[in-house]
């Protein structure tokens, strides 16, 4: 079945400029309001006349609106670039692809590092607690603004999968299909525990200063440790064995506890580089939103899905122990009980949770054919 691997640098969507959408006032689930909310987003391809070809890509914890192409400085490819572009899974010759940064984030959308219009200072911990559903609501306003009545699909991995599930449960009339990948209906205690260790690492950093570090030294150590823990949970023991083994790093060792092994160096590098691109308070807010998410918060999932015409494609990965396949099967079970049309594949991958960003061939095959069917049904409906 192997789909041809597409070279990342060839024939992509080219240079893309991030755009910004302003929401005057957004009411959150907890009834609090945020005024003047900015949402960063990018689009690829063209919306067709009937507006039936729009795809919403939903990013994971540390993702952003820049999903495809090269950013304006022409340096960085998008985080899912190998999936989006002409001839790729989300074929921009056929589909109008939208990706937006979530609220609470730090990649151009309003979050704790933004300036609070009421005070003229950074929100920091004055930023209200946001939920996955709030993130969806903000993105729904963007979809309204773009004049799209019904999305062809809402798709994402990890937290992006939760956002897709939130669309499915709360706005089923606004989507033809949903593609939750490597995700869960709700976090189990192990997932909450890993998130909490990350949050504690940030809050234990003296520079964190109860969230008021803007303009001063950043809680860089704490955020780096949080990211290191994250990275361990995104890999599998097998992918770590293949990537690092017990390989030692080269060079002299001036101190007893330097990074002796490749894996240590890798984690330190990943931790340190994350600090340059991510806000520690956003990390707290977004992980909390993920921990609080529960697609069954009002009623059992099968009841929410009952009678829907929406199609669902669920994808899980065998070696993913952060979002194990049994959690995806819980989604499938609810789909079965509700009688909606469902496709599920547990891809045999050794990459762990990272697989949703790496198993491009399998995802391309599943998603491109699934979308083709959904699009055909939408066009002929």
């Amino acid at each position, binding site marked *: *079945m192997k789909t041809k691997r597409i070279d990342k640098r060839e024939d992509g969507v080219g240079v893309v400029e991030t755009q910004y959408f302003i929401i005057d006032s957004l009411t959150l689930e907890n009834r609090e309001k945020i005024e003047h909310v900015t949402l960063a987003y990018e689009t690829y391809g063209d919306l067709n006349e009937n507006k039936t070809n729009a795809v919403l890509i939903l990013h994971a914890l540390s993702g952003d609106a820049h999903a495809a192409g090269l950013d304006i400085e022409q340096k960085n490819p998008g985080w899912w670039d190998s999936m989006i572009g002409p001839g790729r899974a989300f074929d921009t010759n056929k589909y109008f692809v939208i990706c937006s940064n979530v609220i609470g984030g730090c990649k151009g959308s309003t979050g704790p590092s933004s300036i609070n219009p009421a005070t003229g200072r950074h929100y920091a911990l004055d930023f209200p607690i946001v939920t996955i559903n709030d993130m969806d609501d903000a993105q729904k306003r963007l979809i309204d603004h773009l004049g799209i009545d019904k999305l062809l699909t809402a798709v994402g991995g990890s937290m992006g999968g939760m956002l897709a599930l939130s669309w499915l449960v709360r706005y089923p009339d606004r989507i033809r299909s949903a593609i939750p990948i490597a995700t869960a209906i709700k976090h189990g205690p192990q997932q909450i525990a890993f998130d909490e260790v990350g949050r504690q690492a940030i809050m234990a950093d003296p520079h964190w200063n109860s969230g008021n570090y803007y303009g001063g030294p950043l809680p860089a150590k704490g955020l780096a440790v949080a990211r290191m823990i994250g990275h361990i949970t995104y890999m599998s023991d097998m992918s770590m064995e293949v990537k690092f083994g017990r390989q030692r790093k080269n060079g002299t060792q001036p101190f007893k506890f330097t990074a002796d092994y490749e894996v240590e160096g890798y984690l330190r590098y990943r931790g340190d580089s994350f600090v340059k691109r991510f806000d520690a308070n956003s990390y707290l807010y977004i992980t909390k939103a993920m921990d609080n998410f529960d697609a069954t918060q009002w009623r059992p999932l099968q009841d929410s899905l009952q009678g829907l015409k929406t*199609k669902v494609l669920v994808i899980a990965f065998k070696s993913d122990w952060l979002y194990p396949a049994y959690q995806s*099967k819980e989604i*499938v*079970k609810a789909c*079965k*009980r509700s*009688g909606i*049309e*469902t*496709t*599920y*594949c*547990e*891809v*045999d991958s050794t990459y762990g949770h990272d697989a949703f960003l790496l198993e491009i061939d*399998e995802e391309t*095959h*599943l998603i491109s*054919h*699934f979308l*083709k*069917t959904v699009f*055909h049904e939408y066009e002929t409906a």
Partner: protein
Amino acid sequence: MNVRFDHKAILKLVKPQSAVLELGCGTGDLLSLLIKERSVRGQGLEIDEQAIYACVAKGLNVIHGDIDSGLAEYEDKSFDYVILNQSLQQIKHPDSVLTDALRVGRKVIISFSNFAYYKSRLQIFFRGRTPVTGALPYQWYETPNLHFLSITDFINYCGLKKIRIERRMYISEDKRIKLLPNLFAQTGIFLADRGL
């Protein structure tokens, strides 16, 4: 396209516009045929990952999982037909799967290779060998089949379990068999339900 004779036979049993669940749908040939010829709402269940990719390429809805545990999650009467096409022999617990299939489907279509086909009997009787035939083409060491049953076995089972057989078709190669099916048919196809 050359449609398999047993697929044609199953096609005759399925009413248009119905909802169909196929257990062990493989690469989805029968399910595609049913969608094309009968406009059914089709759903497949399949254990093999590569077969899943083939089904998805055909535009089918297919769930990756095993039949033994995958069927229990459906509500009663979720489908008009539950189809077991050559998969009954490969299931760990055929009795509980059939019971569940009759719960989940209003009707169940079961198609399996007849172990009492005369060529099989001859191979056992004269050569003392485990039979290898067109409908049961595997050597003992490579067969996916866990259970071997004859047409008579199945009919007796239905009697024992109070399963009503609404229709039965017996085929060998590309022919219908009317006479002594347990001897001359390679494949038995049954349309069954729980009766009243």
